[in-house]
């Protein structure tokens, strides 16, 4: 059974003006059908306003589909009896690190999820320790979150979700507000979740270099899924990505343009090493 499956998922919201009159209807997610297998690393890519965050919030049952259905581990998100099961199965990390940390001490924040689930005290301590170790923040367990860097705060948020022992973690642009160092810390932690902890990861982002390690990539535009494939397949379509307000890593674009100039270079070059090797073969 798939961990996440959506069928014809559509989400609309009604825009109202100041007098509460309906101004129009916006379709944020438009007829999306996708399925994610256990243990996969999925990236959802799209420009600001492409509907990727709205889609993500359906997986945690924060939003409900206007039409269509979302199943998380076989449970329909519209079923009120399954709400808490779903939220414990699919954890969620948000964009702004400050706005999702509840505790005033790192370890207390990580404990928040398990506390809500009614986990016995002794086990909460075990889970807090184990989760903080996974994201490499164990030594900061007694710190105040306010003293941490953005990347560290996001890793705390990831640990907080991890402590709930979810099967799947959805990360909604977790790196959008971070500097390159913070971004790397978070992406490394996310890869660890997937590769070591075997947790299904759904990463929402608009940074191309973050999707390189994904098993599959979905590219969204205007609420639709416009492209689907492995990172290499996606990256080989430079023009299409640009038309979707996205970009490719500089080296990919360089390779693509050299290919257009007539050099026999394969599609979807992702690193400078790959480019060097490809060019050596051209000699």
């Amino acid at each position, binding site marked *: 059974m798939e961990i996440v499956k959506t069928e014809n998922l559509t989400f609309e919201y009604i825009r109202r003006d100041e007098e509460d009159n309906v101004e129009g209807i916006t379709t944020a997610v438009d007829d999306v059908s996708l399925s994610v297998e256990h243990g996969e690393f999925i990236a959802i890519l799209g*420009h600001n306003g492409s509907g990727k965050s709205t889609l993500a919030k359906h997986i945690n049952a924060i939003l409900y589909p206007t039409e269509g259905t979302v199943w998380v581990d076989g449970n329909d998100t519209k079923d009120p009896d399954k709400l808490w099961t779903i939220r414990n199965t699919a954890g969620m990390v948000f964009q702004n690190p400050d706005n999702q940390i509840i505790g005033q001490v790192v370890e207390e924040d990580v404990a928040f999820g398990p506390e809500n689930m009614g986990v016995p005290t002794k086990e909460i301590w075990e889970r807090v320790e184990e989760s903080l170790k996974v994201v490499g923040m164990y030594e900061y367990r007694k710190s105040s979150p306010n003293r941490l860097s953005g990347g560290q705060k996001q890793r705390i948020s990831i640990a907080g979700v991890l402590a709930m022992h979810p099967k799947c973690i959805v990360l909604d642009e977790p790196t959008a507000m971070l500097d390159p160092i913070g971004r790397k810390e978070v992406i490394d932690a996310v890869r660890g979740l997937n590769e070591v902890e075997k947790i299904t990861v759904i990463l929402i982002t608009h940074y191309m270099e973050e999707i390189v390690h994904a098993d599959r990539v979905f590219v969204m535009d205007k609420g639709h899924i416009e492209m689907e494939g492995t990172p290499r397949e996606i990256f080989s379509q430079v023009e299409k990505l640009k038309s979707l307000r996205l970009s490719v890593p500089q*080296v990919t674009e360089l390779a693509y343009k050299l290919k257009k100039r007539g050099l026999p270079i394969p599609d979807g070059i992702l690193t400078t090493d790959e480019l060097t090797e490809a*060019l050596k073969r051209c000699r």
Partner: protein
Amino acid sequence: MSMIINHVSYVYNPGTPMESKALNDINLVINDGEFVGLIGHTGSGKSTLVQHLNGLLKPTSGEIYFNGRDISDSDFSKKELRSRVGLVFQYPEHQLFEADVFSDVCFGPRNQGLSQKEAELKAFTALKQLKIEDEYFYQSPFDLSGGQKRRVAIAGVLAMEPDILVLDEPTAGLDPAGRDEILNMLNDIRNERGCSIVLVSHSMEDVAEFADRIVVMDHGSIVFDDEPASVFSHSAELEKIGLRAPEVTRALIKLKKEGFDVDVSCINIETAVETIAKCFGI
């Protein structure tokens, strides 16, 4: 309208246990109409430095001269300085407050003591330059998209017609297209208005295209201050302080090592394509 920063140091919370040195003997000149990229990672002191440029922070030691006058002189009005040196903070959309976009952009010019009419004229020009369409002028700024809010907020400072426009990470959180739009607009603003631009960023790619000069900061000191290509040639040193030359430059350096006769001073994709193509005689 040049700005000279002369041996400036700054210490946060001096004389307390929280004391920390944020700037260490900074010397920097910003010339007329120059596009300067100020690069460094979080905590390198770049945000502290830019707050000195318009007098929000006072140097612990050293002086800053704007047009030959010391900005800490008692007869140099802070108000004048702030309208000459426009500072746009990170996430400038958090400063929007008026009921409609147009009034919000008028706020700066009005504070300069201009009449409503003059202020509106400047606001109009600024909004046009940031490519905000007329239809949004009388909407609430809170209803705009993220990228639009960002542009309106920048217009709010630009409307004061500063001689130097300083922007602290203006592209943070924007998607690639939104990022390119802002960078291109900034370059246009520089070309059309002739003002200097100081762009603070932690990404070399952001500034490679347009900057005349790149200033690299680390631990409160300036490490490099040179033309982009010269700065990027110090690829190894940059990596040591947690920064990286743009990917094109790194690719060219690697190719050169492998024996390709490429010009490593190419800093954008177009010129890099040319120099590689030349190696293959095409």
